[in-house]
């Protein structure tokens, strides 16, 4: 087992001071469901780590609130708490759905939404849902705070541009309108306790005439950095979502995957499958089979 110093700050202010002091020698632990595995493996991601800063007792980071039409989630809220939140069930049902597919009950009781983002796994289940919600994250440090679109913090798999002295403290997004239709689909190697092979989150909005006015399509585990696929969204916007257009939009996701990720060993598998998952997600959101 790796050796390290351990600090348990009681406030965000104290945590930021510690991060400022220890900089890149410090790692933040919240639920520990990713970090503990890396600690045990002496993962090279942790090279140079001398200090662990435990934020799991910072109660000011444990909240799910709605202000106006903005939903704010404290960084140490667990996947299980998100799944059981009545606010999120009505404001953004795809997020609790996605969080309920993470790991197992044991993992969902410890793992946090902030930790899931900071670990930056391309297969994280909450991330595509948050991408489709256009989520922003708040980063705090002794220098101050900044709020940035969540997608902007991802550099590459398992790497973010969050500063060594910064702490991710909040995730926020606008409540979806009542007319929004959403879906989240995860494909794993087995039904239980699987890391997503691929996943996809979609949000659609239609007007009274059945014309798509808003489309957000966020696939996971297929792009170098999490993000929406506007090329596929544009196929649907301003149109009635016919089976043909849904098929076209879904295939666009495969094409964009290859454009952005290049042809990799997994491409012959992922190319048809991400299109099928996208089609299923769009159909599920629209309530057609």
């Amino acid at each position: 087992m790796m050796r390290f110093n351990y600090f348990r700050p009681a406030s965000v202010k104290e945590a930021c001071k510690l991060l400022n002091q220890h900089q890149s020698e410090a790692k933040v632990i919240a639920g520990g469901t990713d970090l503990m595995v890396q600690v045990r493996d002496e993962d090279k991601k942790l090279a140079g780590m001398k200090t662990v800063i435990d934020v799991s007792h910072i109660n000011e980071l444990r909240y799910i609130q709605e202000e106006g039409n903005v939903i704010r989630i404290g960084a140490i809220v667990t996947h299980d708490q998100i799944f059981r939140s009545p606010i999120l069930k009505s404001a953004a049902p795809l997020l609790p759905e996605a969080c309920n597919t993470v790991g197992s009950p044991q993992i969902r009781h410890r793992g946090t939404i902030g930790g899931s983002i900071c670990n930056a796994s391309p297969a994280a289940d909450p991330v595509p849902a948050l991408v489709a919600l256009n989520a922003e994250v708040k980063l705090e440090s002794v220098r101050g705070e900044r709020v940035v679109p969540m997608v902007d913090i991802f550099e590459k798999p398992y790497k973010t541009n969050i500063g060594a002295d910064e702490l991710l403290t909040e995730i926020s997004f606008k409540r979806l309108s009542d007319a929004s239709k959403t879906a989240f689909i995860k494909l794993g190697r087995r039904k239980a306790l699987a890391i997503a092979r691929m996943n996809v989150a979609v949000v659609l909005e239609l007007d009274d005439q059945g014309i798509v006015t808003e489309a957000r399509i966020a696939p996971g585990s297929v792009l170098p950095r999490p993000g929406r696929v506007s090329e596929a969204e544009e196929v649907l916007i301003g149109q009635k979502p016919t089976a043909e257009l849904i098929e076209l939009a879904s295939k666009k996701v495969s094409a964009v995957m290859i454009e952005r990720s290049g042809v990799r060993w997994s491409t012959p598998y992922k190319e048809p499958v991400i299109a099928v998952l996208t089609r299923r997600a769009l159909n599920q959101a629209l309530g057609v089979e």
Partner: protein
Amino acid sequence: MKTLTIQVTVNGEAFCKTVGVNMTLLEFLREELHLTGTKLGCNEGECGACTVLVDGKPVNSCLMLAVEADGAEIFTVEGLAKDGTLHPLQEAFIEAGAVQCGFCTPGMLMSAKALLDKYPKPTAQQIRKELEGNICRCTGYDRIVKAIILASEMNKEG
């Protein structure tokens, strides 16, 4: 700091111990308190053999630092039987033949305990979802599901 003094309640008994900050809750239970019912399986949160209840919720004790459990109430498989009388879940596991090699059983029992606290009358589907973090390589799960249903019926009668 390399060590820290923590206070925890384990199966109703209060403990105050100084532990290394890199010790897991699983190591603490097994090596400090000698409660070896909780098993070390994969050591990475995949198998569920190390499942214990922390403040009533099932967690992988191999993925939690002992220092993170400071102030918590912990419940392990040793806390199920009372004064030599088995818990209805333990009776049901025997009755239904839900134990083969037995290595997963302590973790299964803890997940099952949390499950029955949440859904006193669970469906087979709910059982399979709540036990998704516990792997059994012997039984094929059917008898475990049956045992939990049986225990839920015993609960009702009791």
